[in-house]
């Protein structure tokens, strides 16, 4: 078995990307994810890859677009304001169906906000921050090991579905050190080549084009329908979530990422005090596991959604749960990380105990 090592979340994502065969990283500094580009600036030359610090996030995403056009695995990382600047380019990539991995280590917002952990970009990531009809696969790790695993998965999903995949983390996941096991290095020759569409020189074949554009709305609609069909396929196959002590639970906490792991402590605490709590933690924020959550919610006393925002995933929870159970929300904003204690207090308040 591979060695366990103690690493920071951001660096773990970087190393995982390299193991997944990524040899290209474009990025612009922004706290709290600087350790990732810094790691890449050191590591890429060691593995024959390229790290390029760009002039801005707008340039970054368009470099990622360009690299992805050639069918090469490529990634970037940023934090909230930078992710906003990427929205035009992301929309272009979604339409042109380009694979890439985009990391957003979310910080307190909106605006300049602060640099503390937050989940305020859930809407932006899942409901389309850019213009037009599209969805990105959005993965939310809650441990450093999961960050590693989801990074590898992100590259594979990106290639499989020809789509940008977002890894959404926050300062906790990004800054925290935990022991992890890295996967083996992927043999670069085994990576998908995308020979059927990638721009690699029209050498002995018809020219390829990669565009997010057609002047004729009927043709554009067809492109759109193709994308929608792909999205339906992803919805059918790629929903991921964790269920924790739900078997006998009367109360379900819904939470993702960092809060998902904090909520586990709350579940323990609650059970110690005789409250049968469990956790439903979506791992794919899009596609959101609506059906499973609906099923689970039936007959429950309370669904307590906890997030580090004003209640963003809450809308998806509501869409899933409908009228099947009472839904309450507890949130902290602006970069404040809730402690298990305060969540438990909130839970008790909602239960009147």
């Amino acid at each position, binding site marked *: 078995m591979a060695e*366990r090592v*103690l690493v920071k979340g951001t660096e773990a994502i970087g190393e995982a990307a390299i193991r997944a065969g990524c040899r290209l990283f474009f990025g612009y500094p922004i*706290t*709290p994810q600087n350790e990732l580009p810094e790691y890449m600036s050191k590591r890429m030359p060691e593995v024959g890859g390229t790290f390029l610090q760009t002039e801005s996030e707008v340039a970054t995403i368009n470099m990622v677009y360009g690299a992805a056009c050639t069918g090469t695995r490529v990634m970037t990382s940023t934090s909230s304001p930078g992710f906003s600047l990427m929205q035009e380019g992301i929309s272009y990539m979604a339409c042109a169906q380009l694979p890439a991995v985009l990391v957003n280590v979310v910080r307190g917002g909106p605006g300049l906000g*602060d*640099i*503390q952990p937050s989940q305020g970009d859930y809407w932006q990531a899942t409901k389309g921050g850019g213009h037009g009809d599209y969805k990105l696969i959005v993965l939310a790790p809650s441990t450093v090991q999961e960050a590693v695993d989801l990074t590898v998965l992100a590259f594979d999903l990106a290639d499989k579905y020809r789509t940008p995949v977002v890894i959404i983390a926050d*300062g*906790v996941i990004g*800054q*925290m*050190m*935990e*022991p992890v096991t890295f996967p083996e290095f992927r043999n670069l020759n085994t990576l998908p080549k995308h020979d059927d569409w990638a721009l690699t020189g029209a050498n002995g074949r018809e020219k390829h084009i990669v565009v997010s554009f057609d002047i004729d709305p009927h043709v554009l609609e067809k492109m759109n329908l193709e994308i929608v069909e792909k999205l339906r396929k992803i919805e059918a196959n790629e929903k991921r979530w964790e269920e924790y002590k739900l078997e006998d639970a009367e109360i379900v906490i819904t939470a993702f990422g960092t809060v998902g*792991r*904090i*909520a*586990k*402590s709350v579940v*323990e605490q609650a059970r110690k005090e005789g409250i049968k709590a469990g956790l439903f933690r979506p791992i794919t924020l899009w596609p959101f596991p609506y059906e499973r959550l609906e099923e689970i919610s039936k007959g429950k006393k309370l669904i307590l959604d906890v997030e580090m925002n004003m209640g963003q995933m809450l809308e998806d929870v509501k869409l899933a749960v409908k009228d099947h159970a009472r839904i309450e929300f507890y949130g902290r904003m602006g970069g404040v*990380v809730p*402690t*298990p*204690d*305060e969540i438990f207090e909130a839970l008790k308040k909602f239960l009147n105990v």
Partner: protein
Amino acid sequence: MLMGQILSLAGMFEGKHVTWMPSYGPEMRGGTANCTVVVSDEEVASPVTSQAEVIVAMNIPSLLKFEKAVTPGGYLFINQSVVDREPTRIDINIVKVPCNDIADALGNLKVANMVMLGAVVEKTKVVSLDSIFMALEKKLTGGKASLIEVNKEAIKKGMEAAK
């Protein structure tokens, strides 16, 4: 911060669940840079805690900021060389270690934190000395390998001081 990482590593070698979580950002300039280490036999859930069983205060601002966060019955370690104030809590175990003085005596002020680490290990037995030494060797490589001995020495002195 290094102290925390060594502790985490040592915990990992013992097969425990560990997390190391730093504070980051402008606080680093404020002088209260700190980190939270959780070492546990169970799966580690929350890496952020409002309370901790063991807290180490290497300077006055840290003491002021974190004293209240020690769980009742927990430990508060104080770097006596720098902190000339008395803690106010009475429901906790207070361990004072003259880290800087001991480190100075070893000829390297920078190992003050290792002195403290030794004290923590001695008192709490959270991990074994062997694991700590293994972690130290893992962490100090290349040009820094020469520092392993003085660090080990510091840890041992810290343990003694805390006995």
